[in-house]
């Protein structure tokens, strides 16, 4: 019933917006990515290069001078905070540090004034939303009941390498009886231990991705509310829980979490997207090992299934907007040499093959790209004896370690992160020939080390703004909005 009401509400919203967009063409760009995938940096770079004019040769309308100007406009939603573009850019350029992880939703609107190929003046409005990537993992919960979610979470937590991290929580879980009377203290302890387990899984050595519910890791303004005080417990019987039991309490709170948090989040920001870019930090998962890659694959599959993709028709535009272009981007491509980018793209393609096949079948355009919204490295070929190693030059953050070297945050180094295989399935093996990541080996003998690198030193152009270097940001823009600017 609630679902039906929700669908009607979405359809009505779509209808109203369809009318508004007839006069003022608007594109809602969905920047999707799990936490640490680089959403904030991507949005900052995108806005900066549109508004300040970057070097984007492949983005046809800007390169040929058809975009007269682009400017920031007041956002449509007064209740959501504004994306702090100015602050992010000054941190990036001035302090040379990446934005800290996003804690709340923010929004930005860019208006592009351009001239079409036939010579008419037009404007295109681009709406972009930034949000904590953890919250994206809530979307799959929309279709799961408490029991399904609890069983799945518990099963997942008994797999390697999670089982070691979940020890404390498992001990507490064993003491709980779902049919005992509800007890606030037990719920609090369970929620705390469960959150600690989720947080431990996120450590860069394990880099697990599938960690719902998202608000447990990034509570936003809901910290300590009952809606966040629940945890999975194993349902003891089939059928509904006994009234007044712990199980019933957990279930009630899970339902209100879905109603208060997840549904509005989806409705306000994801139900009505026109274009989507999926940012994936493949390299962090490769750093951690095969388990992290498999986990990332499952997380992406679940998240991408929540979106409506397919060819745009008049009916779909009226009732249920669909995403007709999806760009899958392996971010931080500047951490490896461009000769390996094709391999990175095949790995990403392997990670999301289910979702892309579905989208292409429905008639959406899908493209895969290795991207660096802000390029922090240069490239170099290092000759060592007879070996030629394709390296990247950059300044790793303090504490980053590779091949017997620990960095202090000021030294520039040529980094060779290890050869990626041509065939991506090699990375997904979990038998004896699996590669070693940080989850199973120390940093000295891991097979791949992709280091976090500080933002580049930028030269200011004549008018005092820095042009951000990038890799394939122009191609991404051309794919995402290029066809709307003809």
């Amino acid at each position, binding site marked *: 019933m609630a679902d039906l009401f929700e669908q009607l509400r979405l359809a009505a919203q779509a209808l109203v917006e369809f009318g508004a967009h007839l006069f003022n063409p608007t594109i809602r760009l969905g920047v999707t990515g799990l936490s640490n995938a680089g959403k904030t940096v991507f949005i900052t770079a995108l806005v900066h290069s549109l508004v300040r004019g970057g070097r984007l*040769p*492949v983005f*046809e309308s800007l*390169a*040929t001078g058809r975009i007269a100007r682009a400017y920031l406009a007041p956002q449509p939603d007064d209740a959501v905070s504004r994306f702090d573009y100015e602050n992010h850019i000054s941190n990036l350029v001035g302090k040379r540090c990446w934005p800290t992880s996003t804690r709340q939703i923010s929004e930005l609107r860019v208006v592009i004034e351009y001239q079409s*190929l036939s010579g008419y003046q037009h404007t295109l409005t681009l709406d972009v939303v930034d949000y904590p990537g953890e919250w994206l993992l809530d979307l799959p919960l929309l279709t799961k009941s408490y029991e399904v979610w609890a069983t799945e979470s518990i099963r997942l937590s008994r797999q390697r390498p999670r089982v070691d991290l979940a020890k404390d929580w498992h001990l507490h879980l064993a003491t709980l009886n779902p049919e005992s009377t509800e007890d606030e203290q037990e719920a609090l302890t369970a929620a705390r231990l469960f959150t600690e387990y989720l947080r431990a899984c996120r450590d860069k050595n394990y880099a697990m991705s599938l960690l719902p519910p998202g608000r447990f890791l990034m509570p936003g303004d809901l910290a300590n509310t009952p809606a966040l005080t629940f945890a999975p417990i194993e349902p003891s019987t089939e059928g509904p829980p006994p009234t007044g039991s712990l199980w019933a309490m957990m279930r009630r709170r899970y339902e209100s979490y879905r109603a208060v948090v997840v549904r509005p989040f989806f409705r306000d920001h994801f139900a009505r997207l026109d274009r989507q870019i999926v940012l994936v930090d493949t390299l962090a998962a490769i750093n951690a090992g095969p388990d992290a890659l498999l986990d990332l694959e499952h997380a992406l599959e679940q998240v991408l299934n929540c979106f409506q993709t397919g060819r745009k028709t008049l009916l779909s535009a009226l009732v249920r907007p669909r995403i007709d272009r999806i760009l899958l981007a392996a971010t931080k491509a500047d951490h490896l*040499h*461009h*000769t390996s*980018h*094709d*391999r990175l*793209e*095949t790995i990403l*393609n392997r990670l999301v093959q289910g979702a892309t096949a579905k989208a292409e079948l429905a008639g959406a*355009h899908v*493209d*895969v790209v290795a991207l660096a919204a802000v390029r922090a490295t240069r*490239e*170099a*070929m*290092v*000759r*060592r004896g007879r*070996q*030629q*190693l*394709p*390296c990247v*030059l950059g300044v790793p953050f303090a504490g980053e370690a*590779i*091949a017997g*070297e620990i960095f202090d945050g000021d*030294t*520039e*180094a*040529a*980094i*060779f*992160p*290890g*050869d990626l*295989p*041509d*065939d991506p399935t*090699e990375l997904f093996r979990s038998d*004896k*020939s699996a*590669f*070693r990541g940080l989850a199973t080996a120390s940093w000295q*003998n*891991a*097979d*791949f*080390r992709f280091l976090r690198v500080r933002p580049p030193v930028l030269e200011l152009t004549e008018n005092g703004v820095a042009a951000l270097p990038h*890799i*394939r940001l122009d*191609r991404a823009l*051309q794919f995402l909005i290029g*066809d709307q600017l003809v």
Partner: protein
Amino acid sequence: MSKKWKHRPPAVFRLDQDHLIVDSVTKTRVSSERQAQIKSEPEFEALAITVDDSARSSRRGVRWAILFWCALGGLLLLAIGVAVNDLLTDLLARNQELGWLGLAFATLAVVSLLVIAVRETTGLMRLAKVEKLRQRAAEMIVSDNRIEARAFVHELLALTRKMPHLARGRADLEGHLGEIIDGSDMVRLAERELMTPLDQRARKLISVAATRVSVVTAVSPRAVIDILFVFGTALTLVRRLAFLYGARPGTLSLARLVRQVVMHLAVTGGLAASDSLIQQMLGHGIAAKLSVRLGEGVLNGLLTARFGLAAVDLIRPVPFAALPRPTLSDLMSEVLRSFGDAEEQQGSESSLAITEVQ
């Protein structure tokens, strides 16, 4: 533990150590790379134009006609040789100086013939090269191979080296060569930077030629003049377009090109007829109602424009991918506009057009 792929472990080199040789990678040639092709370009339909003339050569058996013409040509050559030899000995016998003069003329003739032959051959080779470039570009847009696209752009730059109005585009493109841009994007970028000014000129050339043909047909007193004029204009148009796109043909290669254009028109004519031609014929019908000559003029102009567009398809070194292909209706609307202007001042135009023919 063994890896199935060639895996080298991570390594690091601090730049403050000095036992390293660090090269800028833009100068380094990467010798081989297995390309992963994971994307297709749904918005591009590869259009590689190949004029297939293998049908003739595949015929089996002795080709008597060719044998005949070869033998006849050999005989003629011999006859000329004997005649020249006789002439020279005759001249020498009569007068020493005259003989030397004759010999000088003969040498000059042979040398100039050689030069012409060399030029024609290079012209033909250039034409073949342009055709090959176009095919490679079409393949690269699909395969997205980064290294091949770089090589292609270098060749395109070499081909357009002598075109002064592309200086800016060439400089920009050379700047982009050092950046990380994928194969298909690189080809599109090259097309945009280098072909845009050329396309504009080509459009201008075609529409001017079509307008002239229309006007002359409409006002010429005799049919013979039309035919000659249309033929001459078409030939000049192809030659100019070929020079514009860097093919610089000689006589033989021009003949070859014209033949290819005619064949291309025959091949694509059926396709194009479905949309634009019918429209245009309809327009022509209305024009013919107004005046028979006007109708004929429009039709001839239309044919010239089609001819020019087909020629562009064949001599452009990059296929149309990033830029829109000029369409007949665009061109014809330009032609009709100028034609309308011409009609108003028919008196002055007719005398002008006829002097042009003569």
